[in-house]
């Protein structure tokens, strides 16, 4: 009996270790994704990290049923987006938002940098003005160079729907940018 209990304990321990390992792999793989999704809403690195961290903590508690990679990433995107939106609504420090990302590749000279900053701020405003279902498509398509198929998988939508939403979003952005 004692031997059986010991064996059961060992099995449970190894299962838990397996889960921990899998979670670690998902964390490394998806940390940037969660952070960027949060950042696209909050525009503040610190807040985005907080939200992404919270999303990972939540995903950890439900990891047993989120072991599948696609499922995990889909869930993570959804929860991060929701948490970020909630955070934005309750956040009173909006004025401290970062205007542009810290590292951008289009800032060779100070003048161009100012122009780029202004352009980025304008684009963010336009993205913020999009309805949620178009905004998430634009953001996910812009993160890590996701293609249509990947965005469709993350949002659990048909590829055609993602394509049409992306098209609509671009049209709307162009209108807003003019």
């Amino acid at each position, binding site marked *: 009996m004692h031997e059986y209990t010991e064996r059961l304990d060992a099995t449970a321990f190894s299962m838990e270790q397996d889960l921990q390992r899998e979670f670690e792999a998902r*964390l490394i793989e998806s940390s940037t994704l969660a*952070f960027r999704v949060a*950042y696209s809403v909050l525009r503040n690195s610190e807040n985005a*990290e907080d939200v992404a*961290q919270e999303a990972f*903590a939540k995903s*950890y*508690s439900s990891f047993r049923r989120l072991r599948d990679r696609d499922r995990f990433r889909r869930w993570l995107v959804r929860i991060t987006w929701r948490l970020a939106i909630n955070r934005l609504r309750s956040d009173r420090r909006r004025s401290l938002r970062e205007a542009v990302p810290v590292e951008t590749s289009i800032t060779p000279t100070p003048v161009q940098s100012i122009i780029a900053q202004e352009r980025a701020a304008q684009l963010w405003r336009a993205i913020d003005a999009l309805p949620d279902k178009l905004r998430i498509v634009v953001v996910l398509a812009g993160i890590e160079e996701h293609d249509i198929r990947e965005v469709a998988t993350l949002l659990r939508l048909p590829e055609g729907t993602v394509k049409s939403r992306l098209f609509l979003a671009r049209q709307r952005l162009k209108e807003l940018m003019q």
Partner: protein
Amino acid sequence: MKADQMTSSRSDTSLDREIEAMLAVEPSPEFVSRVRKRIAEAPLSGWTMGWTSLAAGSVVVAVVVAVVISRPHEVVQPEAMMPVARTSMQADTPSDDVPASPNLNSSKSPERYKPEVSKAIVREPQMLINPKEAAAIRRFLASPQPERVELSLIKIEPQPLPEFTFTPLPTFDPMVVLQGDFK
């Protein structure tokens, strides 16, 4: 037309690049380690939650199964049936224990027996068993039973058969039917 399309696709591409550049923000190097720390600090509710909820669920299922299994026995038990017959008897005939009075059927009577069975159990036998029959059976069972009679001790003397007397049967003459009788 083609030029318009090309311009449009070029602007789409540049827009996509701009958005990509805007989102090309990396989390701080400590981000992952902070997530790890937070998860490590949090109690492993995630892992234990499954087991506890499973255990609680199985307990609830066991209780429900036990209740469902024990319920039919309650209906079949003769103890549960007896008060029914008693109540029906009381309703019809006055009991020997309780003196007959105008208040016998009133619910206010404190001595009256109140069976603790469900209404479903009470109603069903009343439809199947005639209250008078139930009262009669109950009275019979309650009456003192006679002592056992040993039949082997009883001696029956043979009685002589009555004398047989022969009486002759009556005789009849044969009938004669003539031709003109039915015309």
